Each structure stands twice: as structure tokens, then as C-alpha cells.
């Protein structure tokens, strides 16, 4: 049997040879990375051939009595897996060269091999146990990759693993709840069985699923691990984390709302604006996530943490869209998965490229890299245009679809959140652009060069895809419509160049050419009528006088420093969920542990005697 014959054997053979990959990486890390790129390419090819063969049963085997590991192929799963493998492919290409900056390249590549193996296993899972196992594998591998980066990242990784394990365990609990009820974990079978259960039972199932999904997706109110983890992870891995690993959560949300027919399950529950209350609450949480992510992103000083919060906001979009379960919203949500995967990968990769050359991502230490690193700049630019939802890029299309569903549904708050996020993202994504790539270049960055071609290549691919899907979203909408049809939702209607929405239609090709025209005109004007003079960094601010503190810490006078201070002041004293979880749960649990220790174990023998004898007596007396 061909080792890459099916998706399951792809996963398992990768897992089995992952120690060999470790050894290969010890020998030469570039070969290991290239090998994994090739493997993901093969996986992509295999997936491509599987398109259309939905519901194909695959081999399964028992893991504990009566519980099996099995795989299946349905449009949504195919869609998620395909994007995932694609992102992994670009990352591995990037890492062929990037790994020289890693402190522990062999371990890094080993754990990434585990992640690559877990990816199709997770998304193509035929039952919930498979889902759980591959999720645990992923978080475990990611935990080790994240903790390798720096001193700070160890703590970040612990936050990550604590929250993700909580999510996974919630999933495990719900899984056994379902299993005791229906004696099956097969997703397809549960889909048909769930409506027969009571609403209360379904509500518990829904709540636990959502809990676990929101943690993994990094969506409000369980988003708190994202900032630290993304900010401190190894640079190229941040792209995987944000570009793909948080989509594991989106997938769980998709399973909860779309694959399990949530509208049908809660048809007897109270409705709010035509949406069952559980779905509505989930959508509102998504909306809040958009707002919180946006507001927090504005505050960040570090470009990677900024993008991390933008991920929170985008996870919010996806959750909100999937929770509404309408034709446009599901299409928008699923398309947004693609959008954010590409955009986050693009942004993080370009930041990784910047760090590869300059050694920092702190915005106030950077500047003026546009003519030193043009490809990186272009990637970042295209990614943020897509992120902000500006027309010629694919980001607009997904947001446009989501707007349609919020507006036609009459959800005022959700519409507000969606627009707020869109406008807010102008504010924050612009900032790294302005500070890292524009402005004055500090002296020490004079000799920065563009990254090697092998690192440029994945960035070029991602940018190209962002543009291509922007011009022709119909390519991506094809599997999405297939998925909607498969799960009984009215598919969006579209043609090669046009999407027909409820509030008008969108001819992407036409728009693209109009924008191109405008762009060319602007470029012509820019190059013909350029009148700029170069000045040194400090001259602007000090009028010739140079106080001591400026010499000591010029970055304080960098214009990126406290860039949005006036805006931040509006919500300076906001309550922080991040602190809340850390103290309320983490620290208090530890305090509780210390308390228990002092209560029971810190004493002398006489105390132990008292406790033991009293317990024995108490038991005798009680029984």
C-alpha cells in the first residue's frame, strides 16, 4: 500500500517517521524542512484528488473498546484541511532558510512534523475521539515549539498549554457524554442522532463544545493565551499558530453550529431576532471578540503581539459568522478562514523576515525598511489590505458576505461590531506598516538586506493567492457552496466573476481592474512628482538641541512610540481578562494548593496522629 494512500496513513506514517525527521534535522536541517514541505505538497495533492468523493469511509481501528479512530471526507473538513496543508507548505519552504535562526532547529522541525501529521487527522476526523487525540497532539507539539524561543516564551507556552488542555478536556467530557447517550462518536451519525435528544442535553453539549472551540480559536472571552503565545513563539511558528492552529477552534465551532444542525436542535429554544438564543449568544461573543481584539491590538507596542490581537478579532468574525448559520454568513465565515489564514501567515512571515534581518519586532526600534526589503514590504502590504477588508483583496469578499448576513438579519450589534473591526483594523495594521517599513531608518539598519529567495518564495505565493482569490473568489467559493449544500444550507450563488448577494452583487474582476487603474495612476503621479528630502531621525523633534535622554533612548522619540495614545486613553483602565485568568484561576489554584499543603502536610507527627485517628473514628461512627 502506498504510504500516502489515504489521509490516515499520511498522518500515521508521518508520526512514525517523525523521529527519523529529527535525526535528519540533526544531520541537515534544510533537508528536513524541505522533506516536510514535500510531504505537505503530497498531502495537498492527495486532498485535491479526494475533492468530490464526500463521505468516503476510511479504515478505522479501535482505541478503547468500542471507540474507534476513523477518518472521513466532507466538504467542510476538506476545505479546512486543504488550507491547513497549504499554509504548512509555505511555512516549511520559509523555514528551509529561517531555521538557522532557531535555537533548537532539530526539535523545532520534529514537533512541526508532529503538527503536520496531526493536521489532516484532526480536520478529516470521522469521529470526535480522533478529533480529540489529534488536537492534543497538536497542542503538545506546539507547546514545545513555543517554549523553545526565549526565556519569556516558556511561561507563555505554559499559559497556552493550560488553556488548551482545559479546552481539550472539555471536549473529552462532552465526548463521553455523547458516547454514553448514543454509543457512537461518529460525527455523521451524531448529526442524525442529536435532534432526538432533549434540548437541555443539547444545550450542555453545545456549551461545552463552544467553550472548547472558543479557547482554541482564541476568541473572546477565552482569547487570553493568544497575545503572549503568539508574541513569544518562534517567528515562523507564529505564522502557523495564527494562520492555522487557531483554525482548529474555528473548526470545532463549525462542527458545533453547522455540522451539528444547531438551528434544528434549538428550534424549540427561545429565539432572538430569528436566531435561537444559544446561537445568538455565540454570535454576540464573536462580536465582542472583534471589538476587544481591535481595541487591544491598537495598544500593542510589539508588532507580533499586535497581529496576535488582530487574530482575536478575526476569530471573532469567524465565530460570529458561523454562529448565524445562514447562507451568506456560513459562506463568509468559511471564506474568512481562508482570508485570515493567508493574511496572518503573510503578516507573521513578513515580520519573521524583518526579525530575521534586524533581530527585533519592536516597532519603535525599526523604520524605513521599504526599500531594503521590498518583497517583505509588499507581502505585508497585501496582507493588511486583505485583513482590513479593502476591496481588491479577498478579505473584502468575506467581510462583504458577513455584512450581508448581519444586515439582512437585522442584528444591530453584530453589524456594528463587524464594521468596528473593519475600521479599527485600518488603525492598527497601518501602524507596523508605517513604523517598520516607512519613516526614518535608524542607523543600525542601514545595511539590512532582503531575505534570501527561498524565504521570499512563500511570501510571494501567499501574496499572489491573496490577490488571486480577491479577483476570483469564485474559486474558493466553489467548495464552500459544496459544503453548504452538503449540510443543507442554501448555497451562495455566484458565477465566475460575480457573487450575487442579498444586497446587490459584487463583480470582483471589474473592481480589480478599476483598482489597478487607480493604483497605476497614483504610481505615475508619485514617481513623476516626487519632492521629498531625507532627514535624520532626531532632527525633526529636537530642533538641534539634543538632551541626554534622547541619546540614551532615542526610541522614546520614535514617532511610533505611543502612536495611538489619545485613542488608548479612552480605555486605559479597562479590566484585563488576561490578568483575571492568571490570578483568579492560576494563582488562586496555587494558593489553594499551598493552603492544602499547610493544612494537611506541614505538621508534625502528633497532628497526623490526630487526623488519622479522628478520621478512623469518624468513619466508624458515620457508618
Amino acid at each position, binding site marked *: 500500500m502506498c504510504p500516502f494512500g489515504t489521509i490516515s496513513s499520511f498522518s500515521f506514517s508521518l508520526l512514525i517517521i517523525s523521529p527519523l525527521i529529527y535525526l535528519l534535522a540533526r544531520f541537515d536541517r534544510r533537508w528536513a524542512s524541505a522533506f516536510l514541505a514535500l510531504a505537505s505538497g503530497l498531502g495537498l495533492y492527495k486532498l485535491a484528488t479526494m475533492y468530490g468523493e464526500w463521505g468516503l469511509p476510511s479504515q478505522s481501528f479501535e482505541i478503547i473498546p468500542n471507540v474507534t479512530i476513523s477518518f472521513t471526507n466532507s466538504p467542510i473538513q476538506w476545505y479546512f484541511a486543504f488550507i491547513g496543508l497549504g499554509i504548512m507548505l509555505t511555512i516549511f519552504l520559509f523555514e528551509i532558510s529561517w531555521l538557522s535562526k532557531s535555537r533548537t532547529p532539530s526539535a523545532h522541525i520534529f514537533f512541526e512534523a508532529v503538527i503536520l501529521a496531526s493536521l489532516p487527522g484532526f480536520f478529516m476526523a470521522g469521529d470526535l475521539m480522533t478529533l480529540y487525540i489529534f488536537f492534543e497532539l497538536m497542542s503538545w507539539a506546539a507547546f514545545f515549539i513555543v517554549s523553545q524561543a526565549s526565556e519569556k516564551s516558556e511561561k507563555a507556552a505554559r499559559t497556552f498549554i493550560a488553556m488548551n488542555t482545559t479546552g481539550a478536556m472539555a471536549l473529552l467530557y462532552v465526548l463521553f457524554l455523547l458516547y454514553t447517550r448514543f454509543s457512537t462518536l461518529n460525527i455523521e451519525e451524531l448529526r442524525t442522532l442529536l435532534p432526538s435528544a432533549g434540548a437541555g442535553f443539547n444545550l450542555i453539549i453545545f456549551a461545552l463544545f463552544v467553550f472548547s472551540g472558543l479557547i482554541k480559536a482564541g476568541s473572546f472571552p477565552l482569547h487570553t493565551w493568544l497575545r503572549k503565545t503568539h508574541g513569544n513563539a518562534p517567528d515562523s511558528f507564529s505564522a502557523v499558530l495564527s494562520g492555522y492552529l487557531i483554525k482548529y477552534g474555528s473548526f470545532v465551532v463549525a462542527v458545533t453550529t453547522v455540522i451539528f444542525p444547531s438551528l434544528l436542535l434549538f428550534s424549540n429554544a427561545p429565539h432572538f431576532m430569528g436566531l435561537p438564543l444559544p446561537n445568538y449568544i455565540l454570535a454576540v461573543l464573536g462580536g465582542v471578540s472583534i471589538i476587544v481584539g481591535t481595541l487591544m491590538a491598537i495598544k500593542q507596542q510589539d508588532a507580533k503581539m499586535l497581529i496576535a490581537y488582530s487574530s482575536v478579532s478575526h476569530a471573532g468574525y469567524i465565530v460570529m459568522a458561523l454562529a448565524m448559520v445562514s447562507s451568506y454568513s456560513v459562506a463568509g465565515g468559511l471564506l474568512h478562514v481562508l482570508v485570515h489564514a493567508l493574511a496572518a501567515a503573510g503578516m507573521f512571515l513578513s515580520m519573521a523576515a524583518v526579525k530575521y534581518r534586524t533581530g527585533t519586532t519592536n516597532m519603535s526600534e525599526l523604520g524605513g525598511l521599504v526599500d531594503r526589503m521590498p518583497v517583505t514590504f509588499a507581502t505585508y502590504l497585501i496582507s493588511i489590505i486583505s485583513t482590513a477588508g479593502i476591496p481588491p483583496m479577498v478579505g473584502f469578499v468575506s467581510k462583504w458576505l458577513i455584512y450581508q448576513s448581519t444586515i439582512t438579519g437585522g442584528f444591530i450589534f453584530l453589524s456594528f461590531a463587524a464594521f468596528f473591526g473593519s475600521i479599527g483594523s485600518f488603525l492598527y495594521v497601518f501602524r507596523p506598516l508605517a513604523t517598520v517599513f516607512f519613516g526614518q531608518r535608524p542607523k543600525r539598519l542601514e545595511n539590512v538586506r532582503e531575505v534570501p529567495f527561498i524565504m521570499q518564495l512563500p511570501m510571494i505565493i501567499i501574496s499572489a493567492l491573496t490577490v488571486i482569490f480577491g479577483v476570483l473568489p469564485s474559486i474558493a467559493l466553489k467548495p464552500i457552496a459544496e459544503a453548504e449544500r452538503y449540510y443543507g444550507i442554501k448555497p451562495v450563488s455566484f458565477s465566475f466573476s460575480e457573487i450575487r448577494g442579498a444586497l446587490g452583487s459584487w463583480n470582483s474582476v471589474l473592481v480589480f481592474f478599476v483598482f489597478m487603474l487607480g493604483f497605476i495612476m497614483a504610481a505615475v503621479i508619485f514617481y513623476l512628482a516626487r519632492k521629498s528630502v531625507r532627514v535624520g531621525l532626531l532632527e525633526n523633534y529636537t530642533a538641534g538641541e539634543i538632551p541626554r535622554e534622547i541619546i540614551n533612548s532615542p526610541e522614546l522619540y520614535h514617532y511610533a512610540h505611543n502612536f495611538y495614545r489619545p485613542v488608548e486613553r479612552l480605555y486605559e483602565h479597562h479590566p484585563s481578562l488576561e490578568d483575571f485568568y492568571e490570578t483568579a484561576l492560576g494563582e488562586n489554584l496555587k494558593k489553594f494548593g499551598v493552603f492544602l499543603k499547610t493544612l494537611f502536610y506541614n505538621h*508534625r*507527627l*502528633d497532628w497526623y*496522629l*490526630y487526623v488519622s*485517628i479522628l478520621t478512623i473514628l469518624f468513619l466508624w461512627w458515620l457508618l
Partner: protein
Amino acid sequence: MNLYTFTSLLLIAIGVYGLLSQRHLFKMLVSLSVLELGVNILLVSIGYSKDGVAPILTPPEQIINPVDPLPQALVLTAIVIGVGTTALMSAIIVKIYKRTGTLDLSSNRGEDE
């Protein structure tokens, strides 16, 4: 319930009282011995029968109304085990004294915390 059983229970209670109230390691050991003694007497008293004779056969006649030999055998074992434990405990107490210079339970000397 006969006198032996009663006494044994009393000894057990005294042993427990000593164990709980004393802070001197050796006194605790002694209390423990008292407790063990009580338990042993309880065991023997199980085999007691009124006007019973020692369970030793003197052929050719069969003995009439002997006391139960099994608890006696058990007690023999229990006593020896008690001796062993006590010896080991006293050795440890000696060692503790050698290391910390005190036999008071409430002293924290020698604690490496």
C-alpha cells in the same frame, strides 16, 4: 465480654491517649507498646473459654474444654512482630537523637525546609 477483653480495651485506650498526648519520641514508642500489648491481650481473650485448660495433649486421654490455641499462636506472632518494630523504632530514635540532639517532637531542628 470478660475481664480480659475489658482490660485489653482499656490498654488500647491508654496507649492511644499516650500516643496523642506525648511529644517525647521515646514516650510515644512506649505508648505504642502499650497499645500493642492491649491488642495482644484482646487477641488472647478471643480464645478464652471459662474453665478452659491449656491446649496441650497428654495422651492417651483427649483433652476436654481446651482454650482456643489459634489466637495464642497469632499472639505469638504478633508479639514477635511487635518486638521487631519496637527495636527498629528505638534504633531510629537513637539515630534521630544523634543527628538532631533532641527527642522532642515539636523541635524543628534538623528539618531541611
